[in-house]
């Protein structure tokens, strides 16, 4: 069935190190993927997105990698900071006729140690 899942429910990193958050998706029809960050008590905040015709996209301190062969998505955060501590969700859109409908994974909690 359609699902988006994460390999690691909790990731703890040292401040200044790089973080990698992974996500597996099951629907090969998905052509759009997004990473959201959710801090405690707040709604999800868009971080970065990527379309299926790309393998890599970079933002400010973040990089998203897409491997369509193994249906894997990752978010890399460079020089992780305490403010990066949050829950990170990947989301996909597999619905060709409902491009607005996103399927979210269950999330990975990132903890940044000072």
């Amino acid at each position: 069935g359609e699902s988006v899942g994460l390999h690691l429910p909790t990731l703890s990193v040292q401040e200044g190190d790089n973080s990698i958050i992974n996500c597996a998706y099951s629907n090969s029809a998905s052509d759009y993927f997004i990473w959201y960050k959710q801090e405690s008590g707040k709604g999800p905040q868009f971080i970065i997105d990527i379309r299926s015709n790309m393998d890599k996209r970079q933002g400010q301190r973040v990089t998203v990698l897409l491997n369509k062969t193994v249906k894997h998505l990752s978010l890399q955060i460079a020089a992780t900071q305490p403010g990066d501590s949050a829950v990170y969700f990947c989301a996909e859109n597999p619905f060709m006729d409902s491009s607005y409908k996103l399927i979210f994974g269950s999330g990975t909690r990132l903890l940044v140690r000072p």
Partner: protein
Amino acid sequence: GAGVSQSPSNKVTEKGKDVELRCDPISGHTALYWYRQSLGQGLEFLIYFQGNSAPDKSGLPSDRFSAERTGGSVSTLTIQRTQQEDSAVYLCASSFDSGGTDTQYFGPGTRLTVL
């Protein structure tokens, strides 16, 4: 500018009562979404509004759930005869349009607790 706002921020109700949750989208955004987030889980799509088109209600879990959007702006999610399993954070989002790549901006959510 102002983001998506939701009210109330917290709602505690008794089983069997009806509740109404409100969402004020970003001004000018034509698309509005409701999601439900259970504890420790990802977001579950509930309903989508786009302009004057008929809403996509495919994510509503039962007929106790309904939503409306008046004047293409404010939306209200109503849960009738609440059950304990309805306890969750209800998130609203809006986007400028409904294209698949239009960023959805989320509100802070309403935490619903059904006793």
